[in-house]
């Protein structure tokens, strides 16, 4: 459990984290989503005490990180890949961390095995690819068998096999009852693994929700209908869980709560001609960009304008 209370971090004039307030609960994967520069990494650094908050507080399992007797047993963190001396081997890196806590050598071998690094554990880490560095960081995070796992952009640089490995790992950890907090700037990745979602932009909390709700709010499973008689169809489709809004043209409707098959059948039964019947697949990426569009720190010169998802 991670509790973040009105957390603020300023670097001189710049406010990197601006009053964040949320709780990360055990048992599920919580995605921490935001564009680059939104304050995700800074927040994570404050959770493990690398940065001191300018205001507010953050506790892990009820206490400040630094006051735990065995911090690595409470929180395992992957903050940036390659937090390791290039001249040191993966084994020696992990072993040195283990020695500070009295974690047995057996456990070091275990996490090396688990991260799939057995073949390269004795090689100098400087020769590691980005993906292997990422695996080593994850091995370090798991070393203390922690109750809470924090991973900053864990899929960066991983091949598809590695990405799949991470997904299974995260859901497995959550199923064990652990708290899993994972940052990403890719909504699509989060949609596959996360249950809860914390969205930030420019250091501010934009949403503290579930993936399911986020998809729904983004205009989830709606159907676009173009018909000769929208007023009549509207009456025919009306129902307790059905929401119908006018579309872009006079003939168009957006229907939420019924699928294309049901709408088509109803229209056919009553002889209402349909010109178009399209299930809308909302792009999560677009929904995310729509939400954070104003909060993006660094726009490219050809900044992708938020496409305004179906809503």
């Amino acid at each position, binding site marked *: 459990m991670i509790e973040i209370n009105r957390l603020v971090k300023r670097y001189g004039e710049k406010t990197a984290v601006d009053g964040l307030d949320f709780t990360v609960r055990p048992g599920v994967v919580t995605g921490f989503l935001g564009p680059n520069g939104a304050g995700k990494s800074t927040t994570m*650094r404050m959770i*493990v*005490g*690398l*940065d001191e908050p300018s205001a507010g507080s953050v506790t892990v399992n009820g206490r400040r*990180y*630094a006051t735990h*007797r*065995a*911090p*690595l*047993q409470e*929180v395992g*963190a992957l*903050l*940036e890949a*390659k*937090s*390791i*001396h290039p*001249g*040191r*081997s993966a084994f*020696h*890196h992990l*072993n*040195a*961390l283990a*020695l*500070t*806590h*009295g*974690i*047995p050598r057996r456990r070091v071998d275990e996490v090396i*095995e*688990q*991260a*799939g*690094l*057995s*073949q*390269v554990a004795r090689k100098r880490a400087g020769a590691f690819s980005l*993906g*292997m560095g990422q*695996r080593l960081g994850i091995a370090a995070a798991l070393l203390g*068998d922690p*109750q809470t796992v924090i991973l900053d952009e864990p899929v960066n640089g991983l091949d598809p*096999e590695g990405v*799949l*490995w991470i997904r*299974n*790992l*995260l*859901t*497995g*950890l959550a*199923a*064990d*009852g*652990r708290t899993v907090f994972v940052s990403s700037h890719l909504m699509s990745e989060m949609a596959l693994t996360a249950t809860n979602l914390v969205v930030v932009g420019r250091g501010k909390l934009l949403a503290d929700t579930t993936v399911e709700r986020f998809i729904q709010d983004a205009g989830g499973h709606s159907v676009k209908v173009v018909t000769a008689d929208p007023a009549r169809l509207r009456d025919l489709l009306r129902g307790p869980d059905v929401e119908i809004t006018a579309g872009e043209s006079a003939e168009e409707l957006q229907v939420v709560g019924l699928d294309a098959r049901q709408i088509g059948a109803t229209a056919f039964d009553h002889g209402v001609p349909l010109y178009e019947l399209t299930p809308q697949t909302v792009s999560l990426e677009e929904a995310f960009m729509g939400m954070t569009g104003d909060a993006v720190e660094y726009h490219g010169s050809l900044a992708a304008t938020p496409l305004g998802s179906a809503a």
Partner: protein
Amino acid sequence: MTTLTPAPAPAAADTRGRPAYKVTGPRVLRAEWAKLWSLRSTWITLSLSLALLIALGMIFASTYAPGADARGPGAEAADAVAVALGGLNFAQLAIGVLGVLVMAGEYSTGTIRSTLAAVPTRLPVLWSKVISYGGTAFLTAGVTVFVSFFASGRMLDGTDIALGISSPGVVRALLGAGAYLALVGVLGVALGALIRSVAGGIGLLVTTLMLLPLLTSLLPTTLRDNITPYLPSSAGGSMFALHPASDALSPGAGLAVFAGWVVLALAGAAWRLARSDA
């Protein structure tokens, strides 16, 4: 990297039945000791600098020729200890630089994040580096200066500056040299923690040990004579001089003053480590 292990399912996340790990001072020291020796640069730098110390001592001894026309580096050496320590300037640079690397290297490589996440109280990391590296430097440098004394002393046999190990002050001066080199190593660690950059730390180290005496020589004579003995380099020099110059500090006072400088640097390092974001 083809091993794909399914998600782990050891120990459920309740606290019962979990091993009771704990961070303790001795454990952090063990970890820092392991880190020191798991880098090739430690072995290379230490052995090279100490080999150089012995080799230069022997070169000084072989070129000892008072009053001769052909002049080598050791031609006018004052005593056998000065000959044995002929390479001290090089050795202190190497040992000091390695000290900077021990600490600032953590910042330049990002290791510091792992280190401080494991030991969030932070200061034990600094003390452990000081003890492990300072201790290593004292032992290895101490042994080396004695080896250098015997190796170069054998070559000085029969000259007017030959000295035995039992001659008055010799053991004291050699131990002083070992202690001086160890303190230079610790100074390097402290400057590395203070500056957090390898290049900056080395620059400050060289300034402290080698440029400061040159700069003070620009001062007016009276002022200079009052300041010079207390500079880190001069105070340190008093620690291993067999016959200190008349205006220099006594060996004991030299040790106290030089150690004082190192403690000052360490205090600054501790303050920065504890206070500012990693």
